[in-house]
């Protein structure tokens, strides 16, 4: 049984859709997220308006409910058809140049994330690193080599970001398809390593 064989209630669709899976490309403003999406996407990156929640105070505070407001942001994304039954979506997280955004609506159900880093502005990616660490989403840090230049060694980046030992830190070039592909593969291998043994059947089910 393939992933999407169950038909929607009461209405048979003419064409069976693929199982959609998604990964998230995060990082500070202007760090190359949309460039990375565009390098590997089979379509020109699209932009849509989406809502995210901005937390006024007390990020990740589980004991108090912080004040929240909903903000409309531009969301860039692309996709890659793996085969007729499986399609990968890549979403760039918007607004992460500031602390206190919640991207749950975008990130919910993501296989993993790539946090893109510019070594000249390392602290821009702190919110993204914090976010994925706290939500236990598999992620890797990808240092974007602007013009082939990386100003710090990977060990310096790892130390500065204080990411745990299990988080891969790699150098990549957001403009190069093969380089983006390899960085995404690092995340997917990490996600695969986290799957435990035992049967599971993924499917798209009608709502």
């Amino acid at each position, binding site marked *: 049984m393939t*992933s*999407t064989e169950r*038909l*929607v209630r009461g*209405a*048979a*669709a*003419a*064409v*069976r*859709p693929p*199982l*959609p*899976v*998604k990964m998230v490309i995060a990082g500070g403003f202007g760090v190359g997220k949309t460039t990375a999406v565009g390098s*590997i996407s089979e379509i020109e990156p*699209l932009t*849509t*308006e*989406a*809502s995210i929640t901005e937390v006024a105070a007390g990020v990740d505070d589980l004991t108090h409910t912080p004040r929240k407001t909903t903000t*409309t942001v531009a*969301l860039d*994304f692309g*996709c*890659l058809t*793996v*085969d007729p039954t*499986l399609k*990968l*979506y890549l*979403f760039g997280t918007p607004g992460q140049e500031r602390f206190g955004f919640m991207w749950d*609506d*975008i990130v*919910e*159900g*993501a*296989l993993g994330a790539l946090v893109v880093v510019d070594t000249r502005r390392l602290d821009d990616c702190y919110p993204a690193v914090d976010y994925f660490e706290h939500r236990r989403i598999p992620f890797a840090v990808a240092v974007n080599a602007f013009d082939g230049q990386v100003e710090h060694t990977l060990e310096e980046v790892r130390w500065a970001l204080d990411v745990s030992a299990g988080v891969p830190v790699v150098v990549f070039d957001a403009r*190069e*398809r*093969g*380089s983006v*592909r*390899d960085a*995404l*593969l690092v995340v*997917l291998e990490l*996600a*695969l390593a*986290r*799957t*435990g043994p035992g049967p*599971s*059947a*993924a*499917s*798209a*089910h*009608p*709502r």
Partner: protein
Amino acid sequence: MADGTTGQDPVGLEPVGPAPVGPAPAVRPFLVTAGRVADAGGGRAMPLETQVVATAAGLDALGLLSFERHDIVAACRLPQSLAELAARLRLHLNVVRVLAEDLREAGQLAVYVPDPEAVHDASVLRRLIDGLRAVPDSRGIPRNTE
């Protein structure tokens, strides 16, 4: 009246404050959903990558549908995600969520919500890894032949 056009004010009142920057959309985004928002029911909103595709009934009813509903069913002759649909039709994602739910209830759209367990499915991840490895780099060389 109240048709969303930016014509002359029939009453002749001039705005007092500073003029808004840039043209306002002709129709406020959530007017087309009658003010309803996607996750008002307390349940989780449909994920961005949720696949939608027109049903035969939906395509048959195309001539009876109007505006955004017509555009959504027409665009969904081929399956696509809510995010693609919103981007291509220039609608707010949450507007598309509400209208897709309406069209699903009317039997005009099939909505496939992805199973969250797919994230933990090793077979899905392996297919994805194999598929991605076969993507050639900018010089046309796939990773698994390097």
